[in-house]
């Protein structure tokens, strides 16, 4: 920003210029993912932890051959976990995989059709992971009490959903997001639900510290163009939040003065 300095996003002691976090799922290939990542300006990218394919060609590029863990902050997720136990196990594997890297995205799902978080399992996993010295960015519902509890447990960022994962329905309950923000002392990042640029802007205008998205970019007809749109949307929303919007009025308020009219 030129006029007023914004404070950068800080997560687990590290500073990020971009408030957009993107995923690496659903892209056509790693190259398209990388191009979208570059266009988005994001510095953090989520990855999933899965079994290797035993038959896979050893020469085939892996995700990290294309998206460099030296250049970007890799955020391993626990997607697909339905119990605290599986999520904790996945994080431990991720930490070993990434040579002691402590930052993880915890998500414990409760239901296959909504992919809604299982909050009780999430709380249990968060407690264990914090105890094991992980830096936990936690995906959760938009319940303000649960969000606060996750902060108290010691999560480094709380990430309420805007709408179900991959739904593209936008920020369905902005009032709950606001309630979460009012009580927060850690970054609040909307994770899931964003469908298009204006959704990301709405999240940022509410005062969120960031937005995490995957499908909105990966499933756009032109993912790289959408990644660029999302970069601007997040920046615009942030600036609008800092600028402070005008009050809403029921009736008009003329922009041109009445004084000096000659008719």
């Amino acid at each position, binding site marked *: 920003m030129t006029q007023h300095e914004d404070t950068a996003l800080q997560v687990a002691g590290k500073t990020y210029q971009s408030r957009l976090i993107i995923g690496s799922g659903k892209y056509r290939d790693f190259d398209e993912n990388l191009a979208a990542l570059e266009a988005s300006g994001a510095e953090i990218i989520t990855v999933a932890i899965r079994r290797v394919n*035993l038959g896979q060609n*050893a020469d085939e590029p892996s995700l990290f051959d294309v998206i460099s863990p030296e250049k970007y902050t890799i955020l391993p997720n626990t*997607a697909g976990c339905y119990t605290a136990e599986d999520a904790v196990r996945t994080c431990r*594997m991720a930490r*070993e995989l990434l040579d002691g890297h402590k930052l993880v995205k915890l998500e414990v799902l409760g239901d296959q059709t909504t992919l809604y978080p299982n909050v009780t399992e999430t709380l249990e996993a968060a407690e264990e992971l914090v105890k094991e010295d992980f830096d936990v960015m936690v995906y959760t519902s938009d319940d303000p009490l649960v969000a606060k509890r996750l902060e108290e447990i010691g999560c480094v960022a709380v990430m309420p959903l805007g709408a179900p994962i*991959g739904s593209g329905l936008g920020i369905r309950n902005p009032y709950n997001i606001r309630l979460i923000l009012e009580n927060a002392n850690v970054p609040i990042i909307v994770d899931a639900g964003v469908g298009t640029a204006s959704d990301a802007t709405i999240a940022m205008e509410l005062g969120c510290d960031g937005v995490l998205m995957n499908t909105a970019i990966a499933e756009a007809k032109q993912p790289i163009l959408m990644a660029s749109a999302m970069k601007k949307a997040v920046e615009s929303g942030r600036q609008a939040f800092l600028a402070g919007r005008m009050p809403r009025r029921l009736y008009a308020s003329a922009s041109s003065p009445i004084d000096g009219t000659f008719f």
Partner: protein
Amino acid sequence: MEVIINGDQHLIDSSYSLMDLLVNLEMTQGQIAVELNGEIIPKSTFQQQQLSDGDKIEIIQAIGGG
């Protein structure tokens, strides 16, 4: 001897260390992590880690995900 690797049964030489197995599977190039019977095995000990009949081995990697 028989071990289970990523959910599938495999017959391997009974003298194999974990490192021997990974070499045999051509898994030494990429970034992976290994769990043996539910315990994470640090990369630095792959060579010393002997395998036994019935071992359950998980070999994981990072892939695209949101």
